[in-house]
């Protein structure tokens, strides 16, 4: 699946998107896999309460299932307007 990062999540991880091959069943499991990769991932995902996630461009929960999802995006709370 495509994993996208925005704002300071993108800056901490150091890239805007990547293709990830994962069998994680939920967002939370995917986050654990990513955080285990390298320090920059561990840092970006250290506080889930400061993060939001979208699945196929709709906001979702961290407990949401990933089955059939093609695009996962992680980012901080939004500040539009």
């Amino acid at each position, binding site marked *: 699946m495509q994993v996208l990062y925005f*704002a300071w999540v993108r800056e901490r991880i150091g890239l805007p998107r990547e293709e990830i091959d994962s069998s994680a069943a939920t967002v939370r499991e995917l986050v654990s896999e990513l955080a285990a990769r390298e320090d920059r991932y561990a840092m970006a995902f250290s506080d889930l309460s400061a993060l939001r996630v979208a699945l196929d*461009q709709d906001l979702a929960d961290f407990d949401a299932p990933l089955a059939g999802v093609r695009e996962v995006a992680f980012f901080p709370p*939004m500040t539009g307007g």
Partner: protein
Amino acid sequence: MRIVVQKAPFDFGAEAGAFAAGRTDMGAVVTFTGVVRDLPDDPLKVMEIEHYPGMTERALEKIATEASERWNLGDVLVIHRFGPMTPGEQIMMVATAAPHRVDAFAAAEFLMDYLKSRAPFWKKEITGDGADWVAAKDEDEAALDRW
């Protein structure tokens, strides 16, 4: 309903004028415009807005559609910019047209509250001291509870 996400500046006066013109069934038009504010202590050089292409349009359309379902509206316009902007530049606008003022005001406030916290935009302030992502405010999240 018209949703525009663009990097280029927009002409607020021209957009507002065109939106309000020629309606004989809508008694009330409300507009909101967000403007880049300078920072009192540390002058702002640039406000940079990042967004999530694709999801942004989708989220704005969802919010505008929900507003149209909740209130008796004739039309909705949302324009939101991304990229770098300087103090005084207009970041975004919403406009609502309704038969009655209560609906036009409520829908415009609803659009703004949801757009602030549910549309994928992120602001970064670049000053002489460096660059900081603007933190979301608890009060903006709390503002959603009233709807």
